[in-house]
């Protein structure tokens, strides 16, 4: 279609095609440049995206990635994130349509995170880095334009949240004392992956004084005992994103990923006298393994642990929608499923022409 260049943003806003911010015009040349980093036919159907059930193709993803401001090299990450969200285990229909404020958080692991400059250090959940900002924004524009998740229409989130604009972060693998998330989830360290989790925005965990694991864990226990979080009644897979300093203290105290999961399962619990007074009391008790002291995860393995950030005594946790959605990890890969060692393997190859031509 043809639009007045000077009125592009007004036109897109009026048609409900934007997130409210100005967009980059998705011209044919720009979309083709985006698809230069994709080895699939531009019209290959990858599925439909609920709740609107828009047909997902590389080309429609590229249009939205252009609008978001992505560099073409980012496109394999966007595509992998979308494929992960379309996994039935992620339950995107519910994630999109719920009154809860969850947004898919895209966690990038492996060498491609560094290659693209995806921030996993200072301010990684915040602004300032194009890769994080535009990959996250592209995912949101796809959820809006392909999935139809317009606020108040098919996205019924009561209040929304800022992370619905963009929610993409890399794990700070270099400063983590533990194997990275994707290795814990069964991938080789050399394979680059995206993990999507339907999460609230990061909730800060400030511990400025502890010099041993005991203190950090006490702070953790206080922060995660949160009756207002869905996990208090619905379990699921919350993520703790430890700052490197907190992670180092915990590792020195002998805590690895498994031990942290056991700690949260065993010690972050809500007593009946508290949970029964409000929240979602009366709705899910049939699933409580221990109603007197209710855990926030159903088993230790359901805690996701990553390391994010620069120096400083802060960590955060990402409460989730609950166990109706599961985190999904996908390799950033070629069309045949072979993981990409580098996005440069695709750059300039160009998307194949439409499969029908």
């Amino acid at each position, binding site marked *: *279609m*043809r*639009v*007045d*260049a*000077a009125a*592009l943003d007004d036109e897109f806003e009026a048609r409900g*095609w934007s997130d409210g911010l100005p967009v980059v*015009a*998705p*011209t*044919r040349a720009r*979309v083709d440049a985006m698809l230069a980093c994709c080895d699939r036919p531009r019209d290959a159907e990858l599925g*439909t995206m609920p709740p*609107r*059930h*828009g*047909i*997902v*193709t590389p*080309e*429609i993803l590229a*249009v*939205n990635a252009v*609008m978001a401001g992505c560099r073409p090299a980012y496109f394999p990450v966007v595509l992998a994130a979308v494929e992960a969200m379309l996994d039935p285990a992620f339950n995107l229909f*519910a994630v999109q349509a719920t*009154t809860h404020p969850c947004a898919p958080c895209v966690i990038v692991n492996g060498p491609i995170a560094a290659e693209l400059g995806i921030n996993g250090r200072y301010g990684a959940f915040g602004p300032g880095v194009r890769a994080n900002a535009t990959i996250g924004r592209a995912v949101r*524009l796809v959820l809006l*334009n*392909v999935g139809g998740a317009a606020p108040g229409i098919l996205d019924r989130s009561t209040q929304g949240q800022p992370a619905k604009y963009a929610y993409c972060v890399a794990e700070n693998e270099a400063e983590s004392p533990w194997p990275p998330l994707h290795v814990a989830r069964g991938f080789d360290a050399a394979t680059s992956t995206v993990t999507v989790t339907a999460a609230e925005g990061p909730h800060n965990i400030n511990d400025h004084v502890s010099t041993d694991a005991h203190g950090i864990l006490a702070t953790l226990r206080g922060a995660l005992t949160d009756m207002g979080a869905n996990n208090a009644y*619905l379990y699921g897979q919350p993520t703790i994103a430890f700052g490197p300093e907190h992670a180092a203290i915990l590792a020195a105290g002998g805590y690895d990923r498994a031990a942290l999961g056991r700690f949260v399962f065993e010690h972050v619990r809500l007593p009946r006298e508290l949970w029964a007074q409000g929240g979602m009391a*009366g*709705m*899910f008790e*049939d*699933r409580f393994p221990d109603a007197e002291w209710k855990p926030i995860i159903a088993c230790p393995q359901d805690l996701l642990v990553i390391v994010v950030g620069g120096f400083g005594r802060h960590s955060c946790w990402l409460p989730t929608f*609950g*166990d*109706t959605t599961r985190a999904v990890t996908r390799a950033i890969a070629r069309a045949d499923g072979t993981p990409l060692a580098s996005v440069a393997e695709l750059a300039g190859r160009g998307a194949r022409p439409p499969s029908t031509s």
Partner: protein
Amino acid sequence: MSELEILVPVPATRTPAHPLAPRLAALGGRRIGWLDNRKANAAALLGGVADSLAAEGHAFARELAQKNATAPAPEGVMAHLRTCDAVVLAIAD
């Protein structure tokens, strides 16, 4: 005015087919299931509908069932509902 040729960011849709179940000719003498998702207004909505139909003279048996709001109904609940002639589901919030 400078014009741009742009690609539309909204694709065509393919909505899954959800055909309606065959309609009952009458409710009299039938077993009607009422599936409550345990959200605050579900029971009120279902009860109101059932009471209204009963007040209109439809003499049906009420089979009440519950599921939690975020997961499919357990097999035991589904087995119970399969014995009904029709099921009414309330999705409340």
